[in-house]
């Protein structure tokens, strides 16, 4: 089963191209546009900020793997074929989500690798940053599964997650910087799960133990809640 789901995910060449190629191009363009205006010595910080922003944003878009896989398996005729087999349907659900997490996480790692190799930046506490990104990926894919179980159509789910991502990025001030205040600072750090991932990655880089605990705590507890919801909603596919 794992082999089949892996092969199926690998076949989605357009998906990979969009989810790796597009952020790569956007990071490159945004870095080039901002390069001139950045004071000497702050280049690495700028690249990291832009890079992490796009990595987190495209983790959200990586939800498409889960949407499309679960829609194909449970909201199209394939469902009957799977449900007449002696395999517990929950295994299909979590195989799909699990492999979507792995593929989306690999994409995040490739983008981190691009930042390091292309711009030669040093990411402090890289392992911690990667952990934050992994938690972000897990959260995004579980959120995706809940949305598809509720709306049952991948294109509708995609529209919902796109609106969510755009609002989250705007409210968090990732695209347009707001004037600094306690409110904008709060929004940048806590306004959405995407902001939490960004915040937690920075907490690791800055080795701020309190923020690490807060960020990972938020992500992990939300993941646990979403996991429980996913499990509960996945029971519906049996019907």
């Amino acid at each position, binding site marked *: 089963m794992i082999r089949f789901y892996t092969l199926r995910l690998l076949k989605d060449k357009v998906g990979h191209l969009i989810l790796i190629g597009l952020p790569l191009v956007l990071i490159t363009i945004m870095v080039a546009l901002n390069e001139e205006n950045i004071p000497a010595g702050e280049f690495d910080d700028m690249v990291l900020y832009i890079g992490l922003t796009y990595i987190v944003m495209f983790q959200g878009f990586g939800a498409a793997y889960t949407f499309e896989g679960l829609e194909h398996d449970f909201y199209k005729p*394939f469902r009957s074929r799977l449900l007449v087999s002696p395999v517990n349907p929950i295994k299909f659900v979590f195989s799909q989500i699990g492999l979507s997490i792995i593929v989306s996480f690999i994409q995040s790692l490739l983008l981190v690798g691009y930042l390091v190799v292309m711009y030669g930046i040093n990411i402090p506490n890289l392992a911690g940053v990667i952990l934050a990104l992994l938690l972000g990926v897990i959260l995004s894919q579980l959120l995706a599964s809940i949305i598809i179980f509720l709306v049952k159509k991948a294109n509708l789910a995609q529209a919902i997650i796109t609106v969510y991502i755009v609002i989250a990025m705007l409210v968090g001030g990732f695209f347009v910087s707001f004037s600094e205040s306690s409110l904008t600072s709060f929004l940048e750090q806590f306004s959405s799960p995407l902001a939490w991932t960004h915040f937690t990655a920075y907490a690791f880089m800055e080795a701020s133990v309190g923020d690490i605990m807060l960020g990972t705590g938020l992500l992990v507890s939300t993941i646990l809640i979403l996991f429980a919801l996913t499990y509960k909603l996945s029971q519906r596919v049996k019907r």
Partner: protein
Amino acid sequence: MIVKINDAIKRYQNDVLALDYLNLEIKKGEVVGLLGPNGAGKTTAINAIVGLLDLDEGELLVFGESQNTKNRPLKKRLGLVTQELTIYEELSAYENLRFFGSLYGLKGEQLEKRIIEVAKLIGLESRLKDVPKHYSGGMKRRLNIGCALLHKPELIIMDEPTVGIDPQSRNYILEFVKALAKDTDTSIIYTSHYIEEVQAISDRVYIIDQGHIIADGTVQSLIEKMKGDQITQITVKSPSKKSVETLKAMPDVKEVSLVENTYQIVLETGVSMLDKLLALLSSETILNVKNDEANLEDVFLMLTGKTLRDGGAHD
């Protein structure tokens, strides 16, 4: 007995009665045709047999065991060929077969051997490494069937397995189904909108309408019931229900049904009353008149008042 259904009742949420005291039996090695107009309850019956839904009332035994959505071990003995293509078109036929085989616990050499056997059976052994999106419609259909055969099911349910394919591929599949039942003693439930397919391969036929069986028997015995009956078909421009009633009231008329704009009139043996029928319909614009001996299609038509290809949606 492979399948035994006693007084099955199934209601859907909108209170539609999909199965209404359905009774059905299938013996080992039998090919049973299940015929019914759209919405008759065929798919509901099939879904109950394969354990995709639970009955509200009644008894459903498969291999002597009570069948329901929770009886997972029983599923190992069943194979379902779905009406829609349920193969993954981006992955090779080999990977599709491998996946479905693995769902039934096949692995290693046993799985590889079985993939080759099934590929030979469905005539795709030379195209195993190709992806189905490059296959013809008939080849995709054959792969769709093959995916249900890997685990050697003792009961196979084929829900319109020949939809949308060319006559050559259809013949291939029909011959294949006949051989499968004969060579392996597998029981097969076969549904189709093509009555001639069911007639060609079935040992017995069940005709289902409004959730229950309205006739069953061998194809021959069903036709025998109407043997000698004269079927007169009169196609008119604008048919009316009033004319149906008037025709029904005529002496020697056994049955009348209206299919699209054609009156199907069954007359007693040896009766010739075409002139009277035409006189009765003289106020209507008659487009065509046809006289025939009964066949399975007529049996179906007379029992259900509908053709198999009526309407668009499947039940």
